[in-house]
């Protein structure tokens, strides 16, 4: 293997430019998460599988309706009847947390899809052997990442209006620079790899080399990039829903639930604890899985 191939995606991004890390306002453990013991990975994979199941078939996990509660059962603490207790309208917090998985994952994946989609196009353009194009696109990334991500997303929501789809788009656009830079680095990595340079020597045109070797090798990395970044995207999304810019009540989205919990915090801790736990656990699980996959596959990328 060639020297560059030993570097992970992030390390391929030169770390001495602060702009490279911008966009992680809500912060994701990108650099570290060193070699986790396999146990952490297995637990995380199991949790991710559980999350996906909860998003797909939430009714298998609870028989309670997430939207309709019993008004005489308001603010009951966690117990056998209600695992996570009830909120002030008597709705089961466990059921709402389970059903909430769908919204968080959907918006999170939506945001990553938008950001990656645009990031891949720009990143590949920047990764070509054209210094002017590279410079232009890189400055575009600099410019985009000079806006704090949360604020940029808020600006986009101002233009587009509130709602689930709109915050996915907003978070996606705010994430373009980080996706774009990773893809740019990956493109350069593949481009400079020995076998690709050799392909050129064998007389393939630049376009053919790009289509046959560079593009497939860049695209194959996308699921892993997506897994690494889904966590940070879910974090930003939950923040925007907490501010009331995403799905509206009574949608059982985690950020919305936490926003609702504030009014009863003095007397009831449970509506303010469990949805937050769900967010943190989800972000950790995706980070661990993403980083492990990245380490495992990094050798085969270039």
């Amino acid at each position: 293997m060639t020297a560059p191939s030993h570097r992970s995606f992030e390390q391929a991004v030169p770390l001495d430019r602060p702009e490279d890390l911008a966009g992680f306002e809500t912060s994701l453990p990108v650099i570290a998460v060193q070699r986790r013991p396999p146990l952490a990975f297995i637990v995380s994979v199991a949790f991710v599988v559980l999350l996906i199941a909860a998003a797909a078939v939430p009714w298998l996990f609870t028989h309670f309706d997430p939207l309709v509660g019993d008004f005489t059962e308001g603010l009951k603490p966690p117990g056998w009847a209600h695992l996570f207790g009830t909120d002030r309208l008597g709705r089961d917090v466990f059921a709402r947390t389970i059903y909430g998985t769908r919204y968080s994952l959907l918006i999170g994946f939506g945001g990553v899809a938008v950001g990656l989609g645009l990031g891949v196009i720009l990143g590949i353009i920047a990764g070509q052997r054209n210094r002017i194009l590279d410079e232009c696109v890189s400055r575009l990334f600099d410019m985009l990442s000079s806006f704090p991500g949360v604020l940029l997303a808020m600006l986009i929501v101002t233009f587009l209006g509130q709602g689930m789809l709109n915050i996915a788009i907003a978070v996606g656009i705010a994430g373009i620079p980080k996706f774009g830079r990773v893809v740019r680095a990956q493109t350069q990595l593949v481009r400079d790899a020995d076998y690709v340079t050799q392909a050129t020597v064998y007389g393939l045109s630049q376009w053919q080399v790009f289509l046959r070797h560079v593009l497939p090798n860049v695209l194959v990395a996308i699921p892993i990039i997506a897994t690494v970044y889904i966590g940070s995207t879910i974090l930003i999304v939950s923040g925007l829903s907490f501010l009331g810019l995403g799905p509206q009540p009574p949608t059982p989205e985690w950020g919305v639930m936490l926003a609702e919990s504030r009014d009863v915090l003095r007397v009831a801790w449970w509506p303010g604890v469990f949805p937050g736990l769900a967010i943190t656990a989800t972000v950790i699980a995706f980070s661990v899985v993403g980083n492990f996959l990245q380490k495992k596959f990094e050798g085969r990328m270039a």
Partner: protein
Amino acid sequence: MWSRIISRLFTSLVVAWASVTATFVALHALPGRIQDILAGDLEYPGLREAIAAEWGLNRTLPEQYLDFLFRIFRGDFGTSYVLRQPVIEVVGSQLLPTVELALTAGVLAVVIAGGIALLTAGRSNFSREVASVLELVFASTPVFWLGILLLMAFSFNLRWFPVSGAEGWKSIVLPSITLALPTAGLLTQVLREAMEKTLDQPFVTTVRARGVGEFIIRWRHVLRHALLPAVTLGGWLIGGLLGGAVITEKVFGRPGLGTVTLGAVLTHDVPVVLTVVLLAAFIHVAASTLLDILYVLIDPRLRAQ
């Protein structure tokens, strides 16, 4: 060295110019008339005409663009038509509490991260394991939830700190911890990695061979080297803290840019949101430029060039 600094300044100016240009392009690329976009959700007779006059919408695009650039350069961010006030008055009066919060949290994050990295870098013991798990947890925790938890524990149950407001030192304790912890989680990871790389360097072995104590080595030599790459994270740190401050203010009911921005987003008050976003970008660019220049001045290898 000077050429490096000048080229850094130039790049920053280009980025700042590009961000102003981008907002101008975005405004014009959006579907609908600019008057309607800028008016927000407000409607009164003569409003559209007033906006068209203020923004010179009857002129050519290049003229409008130059005018826009020039006005921003002079610090004139236009009028909030929803609040019927100059934007700079609306935003300016709320800037201080937010900057105060972001700065306090920033200092706190650096201190926490530095301390933990100092104690745990390069040691394969239990404390390092615990620290790295904690970092992962804090870096994965939404700030607003952390705020809610701290409120529950320290305001409602223990009653050590007030629930809200911006009066007195006590009111800033919980919000700044809330904002600092997730940032510190990430910063510690960066700092420790840098310290561990430094610890592997030959000069450390040399110093160690001279019989210098482990703590002194870390404090005097290693931390200083490791701080250099961390310093360049400063700009990112400030941008992130400004964004996070908006959410933290909402949790704690603190006055500041958060309230203003959120209100403006909900009433589609584009001039106000635009100004807040641009100001944050300028602060971010200025801070990271300053730190980069500082970096060049501090680092002997670069200074020698």
